[in-house]
C-alpha cells in the first residue's frame, strides 16, 4: 500500500528541499536571531549588574552625604556658638571700654570745670580787689584829706593784708 511505502521521487525532492532550507536558515536565519538575542541577554544582565553596582554606590554616597550634612550641621552649630561668644565678649569689652572712657571724660570734665571755676573765681577775686581798690581810692581821696587819717588807713590796710596773707 502506497500510504506506508515511502515514495522515492518524494524522498529525493524532500532531501533536496530540506537541505536547501536547512542551509539557508542555518546560515542566514536562526543563528542571526539566536545570536542577537543572546547578545541582548548578555547586555541586559550586564546592565542589571551595573545598575546594582550603581545602586550600591548611590547608597554609599547617600550615607556619606548624610554624614557630611551632619558634620556640617555640627560645625555650623559650633561656629554659631563661637560667634555668639565672641560677640558677647566683644560687646562686654566695648561696654567696659566705653564706660572707662566715659568715666575718664567725666573726670576730665570735672577737673576742667574745677580749674575753670578756680580761674574764674581768681579772676572775680582780682577784679573784685581792683574794683574795691578803685572804690577805696575814690573813697580815700574824698576822706583822706588829712595826713593823719591817711597814715591810719595805711596801717590798717597793711595789717589787713598781712592777716589775709596769713590766712591764705
Amino acid at each position: 500500500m502506497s500510504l506506508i511505502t515511502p515514495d522515492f521521487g518524494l524522498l529525493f525532492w524532500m532531501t533536496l528541499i530540506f537541505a536547501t532550507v536547512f542551509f539557508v536558515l542555518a546560515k542566514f536565519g536562526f543563528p542571526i536571531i539566536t545570536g542577537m538575542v543572546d547578545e541582548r541577554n548578555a547586555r541586559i544582565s550586564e546592565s542589571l549588574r551595573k545598575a546594582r553596582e550603581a545602586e550600591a554606590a548611590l547608597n554609599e554616597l547617600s550615607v556619606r552625604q548624610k554624614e557630611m550634612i551632619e558634620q556640617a550641621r555640627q560645625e555650623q552649630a559650633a561656629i554659631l556658638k563661637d560667634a555668639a561668644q565672641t560677640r558677647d565678649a566683644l560687646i562686654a569689652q566695648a561696654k567696659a571700654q566705653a564706660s572707662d572712657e566715659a568715666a575718664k571724660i567725666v573726670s576730665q570734665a570735672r577737673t576742667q570745670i574745677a580749674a575753670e571755676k578756680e580761674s574764674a573765681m581768681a579772676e572775680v577775686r582780682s577784679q573784685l580787689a581792683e574794683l574795691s581798690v578803685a572804690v577805696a581810692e575814690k573813697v580815700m581821696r574824698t576822706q583822706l584829706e588829712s595826713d593823719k587819717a591817711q597814715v591810719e588807713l595805711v596801717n590798717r590796710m597793711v595789717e589787713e593784708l598781712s592777716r589775709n596773707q596769713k590766712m591764705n
Partner: protein
Amino acid sequence: MAIAMVAAAPAAAIPASSHDATEESGELDMHEYLFGHIGDSYGWHVTTINGHHVTIPLPVIVHGKSGWHVFSSSKLAHGESYKGFRVAEDGEKYAGKVVEQVGSDIVKPFDISITKNVFGLMVNSLVLVILVLLGARWYKKHDAREEAPKGFAGIVEMMVMMVEEDIIKDCVGKDYKRYSPYLLTAFFFIFINNLMGIVPFFPGGANITGNIAITLFLAVCTFLAVNLFGNKHYYKDIIWPEVPSWLKVPLPIMPLIEIIGVFTKPFSLMIRLFANILAGHIMILGVVAVIFLTAKMGIAMNAGLSVIAVAFGIFLDVLELLVAFLQAYVFTMLSSVFIGLSRQEPEAE
C-alpha cells in the same frame, strides 16, 4: 479536502448542488475521496466547478527505457498514455504511479516528478524561508542590544527563542548551539507544513507531514545527528551497558536491546508524526464526507447532519491547529532528548 471544506458551507443549505460537485456519477466514491486528498498525485486537483475539474498540471520527470522525459501531467489525465508512459490504474501493479509500457510488461521508471506533495513542499519551504528571513532582516536594521523587535519580527523571535530555550537548551545540554540550527529548522519545517496542511485550499491542503517519505527523511536526519556525533560513553552504553554480566555473556541480550533501541527511537519519531497528521486529515475529511453521504437521505436529515458535521469540522480543525504545533514540538523535543542522551557525560563516581 479542498473541495470538501469549500463546499461545506453551502452544502448545509443546498445539499443537492454540492452533491453534484463531488462526483460525476452522483455517488461519492469514498476511497477516491479520501486517498485523493491524503495521497500524492501528479497534478494538483484544486476544485471542481460545474462538473469541470480545475487541476494544476505539474511536471512529470521520468527516466525510462528511452531516456529522460519531462512533460506536463495534463498529458496523463484520465488514463491517457504519452510516449508509452501512463498512470497505472487501481488493481494494476504500481497503482497511481507513472509506469512505462514495455511490450506486454509494465515497468516502473525512475520517477522524480514534481508531484502535488513536492510542489506543496516547495511552496511551504519558500513560505518558511521568507518568514524566517523577514524575521532575521529586522536585526540588520536595528541594534538588537538596544531594543527588542516588535510586530512580526517579535513573533518570529518569540517562537525561535521558545524552541531554543525551552526545548533545545534544556534537552540537548552543554553544546546545544551546534544542534540548534537543525532542530530549529526541523521544528519550523514541520510546523509550517502541518499548518499549510490544514489550509483547505490551494496551495495548502497537501498532506505533506502525513506522508511517510517526509517523516522518514526527518527521522533519518535525527538518527544521523544522534549517532554520528555520539560520544564514547554513548557507544559504550550500547555495546557494553552497565548491567549484570549474565545479561551480556554468553547471550548479548542487553546489547541487542540497546542496538534495536537505536533504531526504534527515530522509527517512533517517523511513525508518530506521520500517523498523527494523517489521522487528523482523515478525521476532518471523514466528518466533512458526512455532508455528501447523507445527501440522499432527504433534505431534513441532510441539513441536520450537515450542521453537526460542520460543527465537528470546526472543532477538528481547531484541534488540528493544536496538533500541528504539538507534533512539531514533540518531534523537536524528542530529537533533542535523543541528541542530549548521545552527548551525556558519565556521572562522576
